[in-house]
Every structure is written in structure tokens, then in C-alpha cells.
């Protein structure tokens, strides 16, 4: 039975409170290594490739320079298979990105992960990281994983030029958003929404974000927590209602660009393209903060804020608290070597994380990273959103057991194909729930 510690605390990340000058990354690295050039190597396994890999290597370059430790990084998109095999085969990397809190719990209970509270300077860690991050990284009260990078989910992107031309306002509540959607459909004759859920072996996940965003705001954080912990059934009113609510958009040919076939076959990264094409295909696109790099990839001339921007996922009633869903990259330590200790101590410092933040594409969970380091107004705004939110929750599907998560992805695809089959879909999810949480 894996269960992530409940996080009922409504927390605020005081990014904006960050003060004081940062040291140089080299200084931070040397301190992390205990003040001496210890040399040797540390092996790191992660999912990052491409620009992410570049950013990570840039992040560890000052560390290698200051400590003489060689960081051997291996990236693979098949992290599940590779990490799992290497751990089971008795040859784990020293440090590794963990596919999610679920796998972390599994490794921690099997005694594979080093207890980080004996590795990190817990006092500084407590000052720099909000309590929630520590709780998310803990298994049965032991700190097993740390976050070194985060993303904000549930942002609704739009083409600024189109919106200004039409004079539309950012909706505050779900009802306002649906009214606007109706209005768009009638006035322009164009579908208001783009939805795209294809993502290779993980197809369906963009849909899970929709459901989670709705559950968090419609049923509230308590229901949300009970749900991912397997204590609230999929057939319950709260969860069923979330699917039906999403169905208002994704199940309506007038609402969504291209209908189910397009939604199912379009890669999420290209899903927002019709916002910017001529003629326009849609006016709103729901996706996490990292989607901006995909916009730039397809349309290199676009300017953030000027050409595209986001508004936060709306509330269901005007007086409800501002809620935000986030996700992040967890890191765990499999071999307790001096080099691995030094590296993980370095990775949690604001000096290290600032390097990636400045490169773009990442939000730092370390609140000592100053807001002004974010390279563009949009990433600053997302970081601010995380700060100002009253309720923050981690991506629920990432917190579920992997079998549940996979079934959730598949259910999204089935629902898009056949929204009227919801009863059967939810009943099936219930039976997976009973099996998956029992392990």
C-alpha cells in the first residue's frame, strides 16, 4: 500500500520573499562537498534530453569545476524500464530522477533509497523548501526524494492578438468560461477549444490534468486527496461530476477543434498550433507551463505576453480559494558515496537551481531563488501564481500507483472516443483501484 503523506496544509511558497545575494555556484558547490576537492565520479540517471540535458549539464558544470567530481549523466526517456532494471539488477546509478512519487515510495520501502535527512543540511533545506515539497518527497516519514525543478499545470493559453481584437476578458469562474466558449462558438463560428492528448506511450495524460484541475476546484482539496489515495471511488459523485464537466468541452463537436479524432491523434506539443494559424482553429488551449517551448518550436517568431499568454484555471464559485496544480522532477539517492552526497547537497541550493531557471523552462521549488532571475514575464507570472495560490496540490495521477495512473490515461482516451460510455469507464477504474492500491 503506497500512500503519500497527506498534505492538508494550505501553504504558500514565499518565492517573492527571497532576499539576499546568491553566492557563486562554485562556492555553493565547494561547500556542498565539505569544502574540499574530493574528485571521483558520480553517476546520474534522468529523463532529461535535448535542451533539458543542456541545462542540467550547465547546472553541474560549476560543481565539477569546484569539486573535481566528474558527473556522468545518462538521459533516457525510458526511465521506468532502465532505472527499474538497474536497481533490481543491483547496479543502480548513484543519483536518479524518479519517474514519480509512486515509484519513489516503492524504492524507498524496498530499502533502495538513502534517507536524505542524514545527507542534507536539514535546517537550510527547511528554510529554502516549503514544507509541502518535503512532505511530497517523504515516504513513511523519511525524506527519500527532493525536487529540483517544477512546473505549473492547468494554465489556459490563448493568442493575445485575437483576444484583444475580439475584446474578450479572462473568465474568473467556470461558468463564465463556458459562457465565453458559447459566445465564441456563436460569434466566430470557430471552435473555442483545442485539446490534444497524444503523447506516445503516455497518451492521455493531458486529459488527466483536466480532470484533476476540475476535481481540485469543484470537489475541493479534501476530495482530491482522498481520490488519489484510493479512498474515494471513481464512481463517486465528485469524480463523476468532474468527467461530466469536462465532457461539456471535449464531448461537444462545437466546442473542440476537429472533434475526437483530432483530439486523440494530435500530439499535445502541437495541440496549441491552431491558436496561431491562419485561419484560427481555436482560441483556448489548456496545458502546463512547459508548453511555451513547443509554441516557440513551431512558431519561432512568437513573443511571450505580446503574442501569447495564459490565465489560471477558473474557480467554480467566485468565493472559492485560488488553487493551483503543479508537477515536478524528483531526485533520489541510491548509493551513499561522498560524491553523491556532495552533488545532492549542491542540487538543492538556490545557486544551482538559478542556473536552470535562467535558461528557461523550469520553475525552482527553492524559494531562495529570486523571482527576477526568471528569463521572461510568463515564467515569472507562473512562479508568482504558485506563490499567491491558497491551495496547491501535486499532480494527482503522478501520485497514484502506476497501474492506476495507466488506467486513468486509457480511460481518458476511451472517454474522448465515447463520452456516453462514462459509466462503464468509471466502473472499470474502480476495479483497477481496488487491485492497484492493494499491492
Amino acid at each position, binding site marked *: 500500500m503506497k500512500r503519500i503523506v497527506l498534505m492538508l496544509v494550505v501553504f504558500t511558497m514565499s518565492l517573492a520573499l527571497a532576499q539576499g545575494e546568491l553566492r557563486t555556484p562554485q562556492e555553493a558547490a565547494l561547500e556542498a562537498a565539505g569544502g574540499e576537492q574530493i574528485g571521483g565520479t558520480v553517476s546520474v540517471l534522468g529523463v532529461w534530453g535535448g535542451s533539458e540535458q543542456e541545462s542540467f549539464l550547465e547546472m553541474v558544470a560549476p560543481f565539477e569545476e569546484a569539486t573535481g567530481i566528474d558527473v556522468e549523466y545518462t538521459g533516457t526517456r525510458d526511465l*521506468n*524500464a532502465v532505472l*527499474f*532494471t538497474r536497481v533490481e539488477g543491483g547496479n543502480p546509478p548513484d543519483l536518479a530522477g524518479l519517474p514519480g512519487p509512486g515509484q519513489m515510495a*516503492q524504492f524507498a520501502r524496498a530499502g533502495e533509497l538513502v534517507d536524505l535527512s542524514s545527507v542534507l543540511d536539514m535546517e537550510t533545506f527547511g528554510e529554502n523548501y516549503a514544507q509541502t515539497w518535503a512532505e511530497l518527497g517523504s515516504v513513511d516519514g523519511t525524506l527519500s526524494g527532493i525536487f529540483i525543478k517544477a512546473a505549473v499545470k492547468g494554465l489556459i493559453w490563448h493568442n493575445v492578438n485575437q483576444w484583444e481584437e475580439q475584446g474578450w476578458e479572462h473568465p474568473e469562474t467556470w461558468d463564465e468560461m463556458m459562457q465565453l466558449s458559447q459566445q465564441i462558438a456563436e460569434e466566430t463560428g470557430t471552435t473555442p477549444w483545442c485539446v490534444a492528448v497524444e503523447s*506516445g*506511450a*503516455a*497518451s*492521455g495524460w493531458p486529459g488527466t490534468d483536466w480532470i484533476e484541475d476540475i476535481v481540485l476546484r469543484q470537489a475541493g482539496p479534501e476530495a482530491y486527496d482522498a481520490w488519489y489515495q484510493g479512498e474515494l471511488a471513481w464512481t463517486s459523485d465528485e469524480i463523476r461530476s468532474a468527467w461530466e464537466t469536462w465532457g461539456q468541452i471535449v464531448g461537444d463537436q462545437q466546442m473542440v*477543434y*476537429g*472533434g475526437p*479524432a*483530432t483530439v*486523440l*491523434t*494530435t500530439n499535445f506539443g502541437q495541440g496549441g498550433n491552431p491558436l496561431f494559424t491562419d485561419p484560427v*482553429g481555436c482560441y483556448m488551449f489548456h496545458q502546463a507551463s512547459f508548453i511555451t517551448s513547443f509554441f516557440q518550436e513551431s512558431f519561432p517568431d512568437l513573443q511571450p505576453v505580446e503574442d501569447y499568454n495564459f490565465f489560471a484555471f477558473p474557480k467554480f464559485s467566485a468565493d472559492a480559494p485560488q488553487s493551483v496544480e503543479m508537477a515536478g522532477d524528483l531526485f533520489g539517492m541510491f548509493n551513499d558515496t561522498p560524491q553523491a552526497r556532495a552533488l545532492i547537497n549542491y542540487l538543492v541550493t538556490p545557486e544551482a537551481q538559478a542556473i536552470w531557471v535562467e535558461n528557461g523552462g523550469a520553475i525552482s521549488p527553492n524559494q531562495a531563488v529570486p523571482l527576477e532571475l526568471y528569463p521572461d514575464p510568463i515564467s515569472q507570472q507562473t512562479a508568482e501564481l504558485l506563490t499567491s495560490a491558497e491551495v496547491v496540490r501535486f499532480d494527482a495521477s503522478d501520485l497514484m500507483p*502506476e*497501474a492506476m495512473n*495507466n488506467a486513468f490515461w*486509457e480511460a481518458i*482516451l476511451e472517454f474522448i*472516443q465515447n463520452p456516453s460510455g462514462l459509466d462503464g469507464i468509471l466502473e472499470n477504474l474502480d476495479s483497477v483501484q481496488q487491485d*492497484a492500491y492493494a*499491492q
Partner: protein
Amino acid sequence: MFESRLLLALIVVVGVPLATIAYVWLVERLVGLLPDRTRDGIRPWLWVAPGILLLTGYLVYPTLNTLYLSFLDANSTEFVGLANYRHIFTDDSFITSLRNNALWLVFLTAFTVGFGLLFAILFDKVPYEAAAKALIFLPMAISFVAAGVIWKLMYDFQPPGRPQTGTLNAITTSLGGDPVAWLLNQPWNNFFLIIVGVWVWTGFALVILSAGLKGIPAEIIEAARVDGATEWQTLTRVTIPMMGSTIAVVATTMIIFALKAFDIVYVMTSGNFGTDVIANRMYEEMFNINHFGRAGAIAVILLLAIVPIMFFNIRRFREQEAMR
């Protein structure tokens, strides 16, 4: 560092063949010392020994381990009897993948062998054979990640009325049709995945069949022609029958590859929309859900599935021996 590696490479490239030759030579010297009867009893075992040793370590031992795990629970701690097998056979998605593997088995095998044979025979008649073969073989040289990209460019779908970005839909719409979501519509999407498989694997069949074709003594074909056989008669009565054993090898291999079909499905649909296959189910149970018991049970079922094919092969080899 670099130079020492180069030296090592040289030692390996020259040394490995030499070492293996030396092994057989040594074996012959040793058995030569034995009396005739024991010699013939022992010699074959020494010839197959290096292969059997490698196979035992890398394939047989892990397979026995898998068999054992298939009777244990998810964490391989408790004995659960046949529970994993029972679970698999009552799981709808597994039944779907059985059906899909049957489709793969029939169509992948038929088309790769058929096209391979056709190409081998046609290309044999023209001077630019090597170039033509290379173009058919080329897909095999592409990694499956790149193959995924290629077929994304082929099967891409945009809503009607929009410029299509997929080759097939560009053709369909330019002929006045509606764009089709190729990988979505069941059960046809299975065939579109199998087409990718045929595209990749025909090169494999072609190369082996071509080697078999070259092995037919020219005199025999010549003799048939001299006897007045038409081109078609020579082909169907001499060439193809003489390639029988090669065709059987290619077909058997393709059947096994069809049973193991994984990469294409994993990359293109990941088993969604009713396209799941056995190997993908195993991969999911093993690496995503981490249920060793069920993953093991699926692997065992795969092993059992080829037993009939192996019996067919034994019979065929007996016949071959009786004939020569």
C-alpha cells in the same frame, strides 16, 4: 585512453576469430587422441558447447527464472499458484492482444515472405540489383524511434478542411476524400501498424531469400530451360521448391517476430485503441506496473505459443536429412 582502446579493438577484431578457430582446432586435436567410437560421441558436444554455454547464461537461465516468477505475486515474495495466469486470461485487454497478435502473425508473415520472394526474384534479373535491394533493406537500418517519426509523417491527421500534414491524408483529400484517422479506427488500425512492420521487415526476408536464391545451382535452372520450361514453370516448379527450406526459415522467423511484435506498437499507439499486443502487455506489467508475476506469466505464454511451430521445424529438418 583512445589509443589503448584502438589497440584493444584490434586485438578483439583479429583475436576473437583466431581464438574461436583455435578452440575448434584444439577440440579436433583432443578428440583425435580418443578411440574412434568415443570420438564421434564427444565431438559434436564440443562443437556446440560455446554456443550452448552462452545461451544458457543469457537466455535459458533467465527464462527459468521467469517461469518461477510467474507463480509468485507482484513482489515475488509469495507463491500464488496459477493466479497470474488466471488473471491474464480473464483480462479483456489481454484477449484483445491475443487477437491482434494473430493478425500480426498471419499478415506480417504472409506479406514479408511474399514481397521478399517477389523482390528477390525480380531484382535477380536486373543489373542494378544491389541498389534496389538496398532501398528495400533501408527501413531495417532505421532505428525504431526514427521509424516512428517516419510513419507519423505518413499517418498524421488534421481535421477536414485543413491542410493535411500526413502523406496518406494528403493523397486521400487530393482525391476528394475525407481525411482518415488511420491509427484510430478499429480494427483497421491494426493493419496500418502491420503495414509498418511489413515495410520494416521485408528487407530482412529479401536478403535471406536472395541468399537462398543465389544458392540454387545455375545448372539446374539452365537444364529446366533447355527442357523447354517457360519462365513461369521454371519459377514455380524449380526455383521456388528449391528455395523451400529458406522460405521456411524466413517464415518461422517472421512468425516469431510477429509474436514478439512490440517496438512499432509501443511507438505508434502504445497499444491504445484496440491495438495492444502481448509483448506490450508484458512490458507494461513489468516496467510500469512492476508486477513480475503477471509479466512472467505473459512471457511464458509467448514461449508456449511457439511450440507447434518448433514441432513443424523438427519434422521439416528430418525430411531434409532424409532427402539429401
